[in-house]
């Protein structure tokens, strides 16, 4: 399926989930689909750490649902993270593996073993039980609620097979924020929604004296 069509669908179905994006294309696509400046953390070029970041968030906020995107390029760099995710088995975390068989953020360079990698089988081999895969939009639309919106009692792993970005899509804008602004916008959103104190002092809408 088309990468952007897939992300537009995910954006339509999202309600209150916190979102953590992976390097490059997923950040661009999520920004194109949502322009979200509050409840999404655009974790740029972390080279495989988006799902671990999301896991820490999900541990800290068990009352919140967390979605995280990881490209299969990032997954190739750190597949063992899935073992940690399985151990944690966080029911409020959904890991979307965005499989375009490319290092999308670096000009669609090919992945090792790209045609043979079976990500769902790898996940099952690590003991994951809620594993889903969608390779076309119609299937995603019909299966999404069962896979993602059910109140599952365990962690969920979803493989989304998408086409690599076109040359034109590679030029989609990245979220126009520097790191500290992303941190503060996201953290303030969490503070508002959860009433947790993230930054160690209360924001009262004015600069402290």
């Amino acid at each position, binding site marked *: 399926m088309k990468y952007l069509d897939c992300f537009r669908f995910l954006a339509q179905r999202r309600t209150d989930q916190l979102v953590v994006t992976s390097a490059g294309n997923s950040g661009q696509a999520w920004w194109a689909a949502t322009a979200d400046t509050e409840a999404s953390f655009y974790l740029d070029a972390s080279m495989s*750490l988006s799902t*671990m970041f999301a896991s*820490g968030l999900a541990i800290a906020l068990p009352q919140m649902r967390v979605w995280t995107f990881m490209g299969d390029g990032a997954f190739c760099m750190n597949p063992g993270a899935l073992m940690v995710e399985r151990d944690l088995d966080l029911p409020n975390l959904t890991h979307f593996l965005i499989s375009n068989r490319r290092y999308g953020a670096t000009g669609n360079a090919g992945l090792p073993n790209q045609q043979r990698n079976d990500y769902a089988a790898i996940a099952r081999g690590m003991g994951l039980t809620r594993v889903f895969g969608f390779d076309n939009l119609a299937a995603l639309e019909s299966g999404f609620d069962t896979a993602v919106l059910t109140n599952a009692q365990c962690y969920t792993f979803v493989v989304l097979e998408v086409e690599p970005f076109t040359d034109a899509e590679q030029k989609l804008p990245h979220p126009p924020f520097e790191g*500290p602004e992303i941190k503060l916008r996201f953290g303030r959103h969490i503070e508002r929604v959860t009433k947790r104190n993230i930054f160690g002092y209360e924001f009262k809408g004015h600069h402290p004296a």
Partner: protein
Amino acid sequence: MNKRTEIARRIADEFASCGIRLVASLPDNWINPLIDLIGRDKRFTHVPVNREESAVGLCSGAFMGGTGSVALMGASGFMTLPYAITKINYTYEIPVFYVITLRGAVGDPNRHHVSNALYLRRVIDAIDMSCTIVDKPEEIPMVSRAYRHSRNFYRSSLVALTRDLLR
């Protein structure tokens, strides 16, 4: 209680006293008693991770959720981290607290840690990481002070535990 167990207990108490609730760890012989203790301690959520970068990601996410954490690992593991630290901790100004072993320092009999002997301190300096060395039992309270300093200034910091302290 032998010395290693007592030191481990005191460090765990320091973690708890400053609000650390999540511990991401990778093994090192010098800190394995501490890791074992934390794994049994109900004050902590202990997450044994697959590699050191995963600890960076996990602790960074925990910070954004308002949970105190520490990434606990050996020196060699820390040496794999400059990209993850500079990319996540520095770019986004997300403070993560690292506790490592000071492998390769004077007193370490393991010749295979020559790379740490030559470069660990230089790498820590090169990335401008605040570093506190804890060498004696009476210095253990510096662990929680270094953590609080990290949170106060929104910068990552590191405590390095010596062989004389741990063995």
